[in-house]
């Protein structure tokens, strides 16, 4: 059950955005790679899974298991996708950032 909670943190927004970008192929490895290649930021797998668990607890993402391979030592993948609440929270967060950044004089003077 989702709880009324604080605003999304920066890393939470990155994780939610990566899941949206990856569509049906969003699991631990691909989410990490997506964040790392897009932002240049190195991500610890423990930080990612702790965040995913927190987002699931808030009802912002759901998950399903599948796709065990030999390369994974026979262990299954856990695929993530955004719930309706997750999509709404991400949209609100992005709009807040857009409003905040709008008109910022970021060019060097």
């Amino acid at each position, binding site marked *: 059950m989702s709880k009324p909670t604080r605003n999304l943190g920066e890393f939470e927004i990155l994780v939610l955005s990566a899941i949206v970008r990856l569509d049906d192929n969003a699991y631990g490895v691909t989410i990490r790679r997506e964040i790392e290649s897009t932002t240049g930021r190195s991500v610890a797998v*423990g930080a990612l899974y702790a965040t995913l*668990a927190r987002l699931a607890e808030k009802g912002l993402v759901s998950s399903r*298991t599948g796709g065990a391979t030999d390369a994974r030592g026979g262990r299954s993948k856990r695929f993530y996708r955004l719930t309706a609440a997750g999509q709404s929270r991400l949209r609100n967060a992005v709009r807040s950032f857009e409003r905040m950044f709008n008109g910022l004089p970021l060019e060097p003077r």
Partner: protein
Amino acid sequence: MSQRRKPPILAEAIVRWLATPEHRDALLGDLNEEFALNATRNRRYAARAYWSQTLRSLPHLALWRWNASGWLAFTVVTCLAVGLIYVWDLAIARRAAMWLAARPDAPALTTIRIAYFAVQAAGTALAGAAIARWTFRSADSLTGNVVKRLLPISAGIAATLLAIALVSGGGPLRYWTLKILLTVAALIVGAIAAWGLRPTQR
């Protein structure tokens, strides 16, 4: 996966131990997948990358595990209960005993001690009621709640009181034994009373 391409045993054991059961498979599978990919190019680099991920993940996994197991909540509730018991002891019970002792017609020392323990037990019962209010789950029976939640917290409180007795130089063993037993009994009575008086519909 061949023996040569197995990830570092110790690092894998650390992650397995710290990950929550629900996410263990996916987390280890992800690390394995990356290790297998890196090992096709350079096995040393693959092992180093696995260790790097494990070490960088340690604080996150440890905190996550701590939260998931409820130990943080247990520690907070135990500390709050000990604080409440001590504030009541200093602000109410001891003052009541001193007030009794200072009266011109002061009762015997044993009576004052009994009065002190009775007032202190009332405050401790309030702490028990607060614990029941915060931690008891309506999905469990009273016995289940007492066994799963109240008794571990009571043991934590008793251990804290014992530590305080040892650090503060003790005092008579009989006094502390009695105090700890009364504390646990009063906590249980307070919790049971709060459970009995809880609203049935929320």
